[in-house]
């Protein structure tokens, strides 16, 4: 396969940035990659839903929040499970919940104009965070796990290593979903549905069931992500909101259906956020930079497409 010149150019830019960061502050590189892992792990299930079901799920981060509460109360408090164990039952329960949400709501909005779908999932997001607020109040909950503060030292630089879990999960999700979509019967059907639902129906694929399964898989994966999120972060009803927004931006930046692209975009954003955070006195700018990069990417892309 021929490698595009722009790909080489981008790789060179990223490599140069990485070298510069390494020379400047090696820990920034570590934290940037870890942050990228978290962003990608959260965003990938959203990319799956957008790519196949063609719906922007504005309740995406809130589903992570629900999963985190589930992991906290049922698995941790009630059954005494560590989040790493809890993520299995939580994922299964979330997958079932996802199926239910699909059948009860999303399915009926798919034929409606896109605006209705946005309003529907936006409504779900508000409902989830309000219900969490009523049930658990706005007080935050946090686990204190000793393993999350594990650290490593290379030369005279030491840094936390636990967050590499997010990187591993993000890569596993991207690779796993790719294999699922390209190798399995169900996955190939999902790809076909994502590309042309009418075409898929006339070759004998049950489009409605495929949508349901993909949505359910995505919400199930949020069960895993939510459990991992709980290991280190404090959870409260509004904790998911910013992740909905950031995931949406990442997915938009990567382009519809491009799951591996989400990894690269997360890396770019994670690194730039870490760099900003690394400059003394400028930490507050990291969100602004995040969105500035997104806006710039989308503008550049629309400009390029217009020229074609």
């Amino acid at each position: 396969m021929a490698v595009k010149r722009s790909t080489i150019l981008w790789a060179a830019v990223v490599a140069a940035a990485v070298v510069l960061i390494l020379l400047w502050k090696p820990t920034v590189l570590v934290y940037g990659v870890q942050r990228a892992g978290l962003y990608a792990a959260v965003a990938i299930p959203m990319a799956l839903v957008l790519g196949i079901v063609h719906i922007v799920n504005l309740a995406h981060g809130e589903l992570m929040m629900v999963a985190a509460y589930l992991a906290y109360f049922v698995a941790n408090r009630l059954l005494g499970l560590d989040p790493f164990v809890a993520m299995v039952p939580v994922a299964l329960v979330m997958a079932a919940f996802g199926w239910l949400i699909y059948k009860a709501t999303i399915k009926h909005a798919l034929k409606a104009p896109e605006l209705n779908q946005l309003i529907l999932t936006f409504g779900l997001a508000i409902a989830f965070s309000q219900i969490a607020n009523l049930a658990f109040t706005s007080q935050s909950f946090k686990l204190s796990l000793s393993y999350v503060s594990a650290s490593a030292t290379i030369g005279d630089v030491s840094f936390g290593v636990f967050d590499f879990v997010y990187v591993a999960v993000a890569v596993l999700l991207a690779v796993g979903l790719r294999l699922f979509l390209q190798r399995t019967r169900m996955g190939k059907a999902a790809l076909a549905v994502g590309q042309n639902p009418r075409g898929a129906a006339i070759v004998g694929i049950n489009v409605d069931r495929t949508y349901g399964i993909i949505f359910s898989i995505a919400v199930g994966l949020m069960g895993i992500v939510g459990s991992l999120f709980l290991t280190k972060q404090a959870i409260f009803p509004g904790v998911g909101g910013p992740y909905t927004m950031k995931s949406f931006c990442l997915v938009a930046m990567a382009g519809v259906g491009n799951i591996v692209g989400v990894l690269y975009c997360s890396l770019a954003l994670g690194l730039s956020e870490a760099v900003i955070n690394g400059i003394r006195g400028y930490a507050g700018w990291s969100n602004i930079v995040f969105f500035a990069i997104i806006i710039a990417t989308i503008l550049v892309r629309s400009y390029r497409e217009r020229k074609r």
Partner: protein
Amino acid sequence: MLTIRNLECGYGRLPVLRGVSFDVGAESVGLFGPNGAGKTTLISALLGMVRPTAGTLELDGQNLAALSTYQIARAGIALVPQERELFPAMSVADNLELGAAYIPHARDMIDERRESVLGLFPILKERFRQLPGTMSGGQQRMVAIGRALMANPKLLILDEPSLGLQPSIVAEVFEKLAQLKTSMSILVTEQNVRESLKAIDRGYVLENGRVILEDTAEGLLHNPHVISSYLGI
């Protein structure tokens, strides 16, 4: 085999089909009519994509109106849609394979089906790894026909296969259909009556949502209405 009785169908309150009846047996049948006559609507009803408001649709005694599109496909009806509806990001090879992969009676004979499709349209062999978007309209039409044939259908339906194709390709497509009609039932809608008469045994003329004429290919060729409205003599 396919029996349609008093079919009525429309969009919202707009009636499009106003009581259409016809049959397709072990034969090749044409359905002719001008733009907007309701040909695509009729096919959509057959495939469960629009729901009839009255009448019956049966394939070998099975009520199609109760089934979803994917179930109708699995029951043995393969469609070559007017808009082709290919999978744009998949190669010709994958598009063909998808034609059979989810059809129970075709799933286990993908290799044989592919052989026969590539035998019928050798050009697809050269384009095997290409994306449909990189091919001409005629070649894309062949991919769509090939994909439908992969399903080993009892009934092959083609909705205006000649649309947008240059005359030499149109002739080629109907030649291929003429070869196919010995092994399956065919229903083809067309405005291009002259070319398609080579590939059909019988035909119906649909105008304003009603069948106004039914005859053999030979009969249609000599019918004054067909001659003045469709053969342009």
